[in-house]
C-alpha cells in the first residue's frame, strides 16, 4: 500500500487538483450557468499565490488564501457583468475571460515571468493538506445537493421562471455561483502551483477548459461524485493506456466521445439509472417499505440522475 502510494503520489496529486478544477466548473453548471470562468480563476489563483510567495515572501498559506480570495472576487465581479447571459453566449464570455487571464500572464513582464512563467514557488504543501482542503470543498458542495438547498438549485437550473414564482432569488443564486466557482478555481490553482512549484501561461489555457469539461461529461454533471469519477478516469487513463503508446490520445478521444454520446448523465448517471431500474423492477409492490426513510428531505431522499447541461457541453 505504501509502495503503491509512493509510486503514484504524483498521479494522486493530479487527481485531486483536477477534481478541484472540475468542481469549480460543475457548480455553475448545476445552477444552469454555463460558465468556464473557474478555469481562468485557476490561473488567477495560481499566479497570485506564486507571485505572493516568490516576490513578496508571503508564507505558503497566506499566498494560497490571497490567490483564492482574489480569484473569488474577480469571478464575482465578472458574474455581476455577465450573469444575465445564458447558454453559448455566457460560455463564450467566460472562455474569453479565461483566455484574457492567459494573455495577461504571458505579457505580465517580470511580475508573471512572461511565456516561461514562474519557477521556484515550492510551498510547504503536502498531499494530505490538499486532501483536507478538497474534503472541505466536497462537503460544502455535497450539502448543496441535498434537502431544500438542493431542490432550489435544481429549480434554478431546470426552470428559472418557476424558481422566481416560488420566491427564489434566481439572480442572487446566479451571482453567488460565480463567487463560489471563483473561490474553488482559485484554490485549485493556488494549491496546484505551490505544490508543483511552477506555473506557465501554457498550463492555464484553453486545454484546461477541455479537461474540466471532459471530467464532468465522463463522470456526470449532477453531483460532486460525478466529478470525482471523471477526475479519476481522466488522470488515470493515460497511465492505464500507456501500453498503447502512440495510440493513447486517439483512444482517449474515443472514450470521451463515447461518454458524451452514450452517457448523457455520465458514469454516475448510468449507475443511478441502473440502481433505480433495479429498485423499481424488484419492488413493484408498495414503495412504502422505504417510506420512513424517504419521507424527509434530508440526504436519504432519492436523488435520481439528471441530464441537464452536458448535452450543450458536448456540442462544444
Amino acid at each position, binding site marked *: 500500500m505504501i509502495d503503491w502510494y509512493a509510486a503514484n503520489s504524483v498521479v494522486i496529486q493530479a487527481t485531486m487538483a483536477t477534481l478541484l478544477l472540475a468542481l469549480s466548473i460543475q457548480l455553475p453548471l448545476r445552477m444552469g450557468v454555463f460558465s468556464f470562468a473557474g478555469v481562468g480563476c485557476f490561473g488567477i489563483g495560481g499566479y497570485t499565490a506564486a507571485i505572493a510567495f516568490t516576490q513578496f515572501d508571503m508564507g505558503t498559506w497566506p499566498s494560497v488564501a490571497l490567490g483564492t480570495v482574489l480569484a473569488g472576487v474577480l469571478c464575482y465581479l465578472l458574474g455581476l457583468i455577465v450573469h444575465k447571459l445564458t447558454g453559448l453566449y455566457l460560455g463564450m464570455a467566460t472562455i474569453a475571460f479565461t483566455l484574457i487571464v492567459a494573455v495577461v500572464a504571458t505579457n505580465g513582464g517580470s511580475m508573471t515571468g512572461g511565456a516561461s512563467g514562474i519557477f521556484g514557488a515550492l510551498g510547504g504543501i503536502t498531499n494530505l493538506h490538499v486532501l483536507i482542503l478538497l474534503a472541505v470543498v466536497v462537503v460544502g458542495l455535497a450539502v448543496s445537493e441535498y434537502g431544500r438547498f438542493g431542490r432550489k438549485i435544481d429549480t434554478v437550473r431546470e426552470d428559472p*421562471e418557476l424558481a*422566481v414564482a416560488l420566491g427564489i432569488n434566481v439572480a442572487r443564486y446566479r451571482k453567488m455561483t460565480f463567487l463560489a466557482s471563483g473561490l474553488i478555481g482559485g484554490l485549485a490553482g493556488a494549491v496546484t502551483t505551490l505544490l508543483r512549484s511552477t506555473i506557465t501561461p501554457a498550463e492555464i489555457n484553453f486545454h484546461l477548459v477541455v479537461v474540466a469539461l471532459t471530467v464532468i461529461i465522463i463522470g456526470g454533471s449532477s453531483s460532486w461524485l460525478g466529478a470525482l469519477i471523471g477526475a479519476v478516469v481522466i488522470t488515470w487513463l493515460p497511465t492505464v493506456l500507456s501500453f498503447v503508446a502512440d495510440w493513447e490520445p486517439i483512444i482517449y478521444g474515443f472514450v470521451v466521445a463515447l461518454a458524451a454520446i452514450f452517457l448523457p448523465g455520465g458514469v454516475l448517471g448510468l449507475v443511478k439509472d441502473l440502481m433505480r431500474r433495479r429498485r423499481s423492477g424488484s419492488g413493484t409492490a408498495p414503495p412504502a417499505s422505504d417510506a420512513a426513510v424517504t419521507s424527509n428531505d434530508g440526504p436519504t431522499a432519492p436523488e435520481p440522475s439528471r441530464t441537464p447541461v452536458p448535452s450543450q457541453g458536448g456540442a462544444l
Partner: protein
Amino acid sequence: MSSPWNDSGETPMIFEADDVAVHFGGVKAVDGLSFGLPEGKIVGILGPNGSGKSTLVGAITRHVPLTRGTLRFLGEDYGSDRAHLVPHRGIARTFQTVRLLEERTVLENVLLGTDSLVGGGRDERRRAHERAQVAMQRTGCEHLAKERPDELSYGNRRRVEIARAIAMEPKLLLVDEPTAGMGRAEKEEVSALMMSLRAEGLTQLIVEHDVQMMVDTCDILLAMNFGKLIVEGDPREVVRNPAVQEAYLGKQAVKHA
C-alpha cells in the same frame, strides 16, 4: 348561491389593479385594465386566445414589466417589486403548462412551495412538511408522495402543481388554465377544490377556457378582449352578454344560446 357580486361593495379588495398596461413594442397585450379582487372570492377571467389573459397573470406576478399602471396587494403598491418577492407577499400561481421537477419526488415538488417561504430551523422544517402533507391531501395526491412526476397522469401532475401552490399558503392564488386537458370528472374535482379553498377564505383568480366550469365556480367574471376589459360582473350575466358571446364564443354559439 346568492350573487356575491352585489355585496362586493362591502367586501374589502385584497388586490387592486389600476390602469395596468403591458405593451410589447406596438402590441398592446394588456391595455389599461382596472379591477379589484374582493377578499375570499373566486374571480375568473374569460377571453379568447391572445386576449392578454396570461400576460395579465404575468404582470400581477411581476414577471412581465408594466408599461404603466399600479398594482396594490393588501393596500400596498408592489408595482416596483422584483418578481421573486411577490410570493413572499402571499401571491402564488400555477402555470398554463404544468411545471414540475421531473427528477424529484411528488413530496419534494410540493415542499418546493415552502422552501423559500419557511425558515430552515428544525421546527420550521417540520411545519413545512406538515403543510406539504396537508396540501397533498387536499389535492388528492398524498398517495403519490414517493412517485416521480414523469410517471404520473396529466391530471395527477396538475394536482401536484396545485398542491405546491397551496403549500405556499398564499393569500391570493392565481390559477392559469387549471383544467386544460382534463376530463369532466377531473374538472369537477378541481372546481370543488377551489370552492373548498374559498370556504377557507382564499382569494383566487382563475384563467380558464371552460365556460361551464367558470360559471359554476366563480363569483365574478371578467371578460377580456384585445387587452381590454369588456364586461365584468355576475358570471351568468357575463356569459350571456352579446359582446362576450361574440368575442369569446363566436357567432355560432350566440345562435345556440
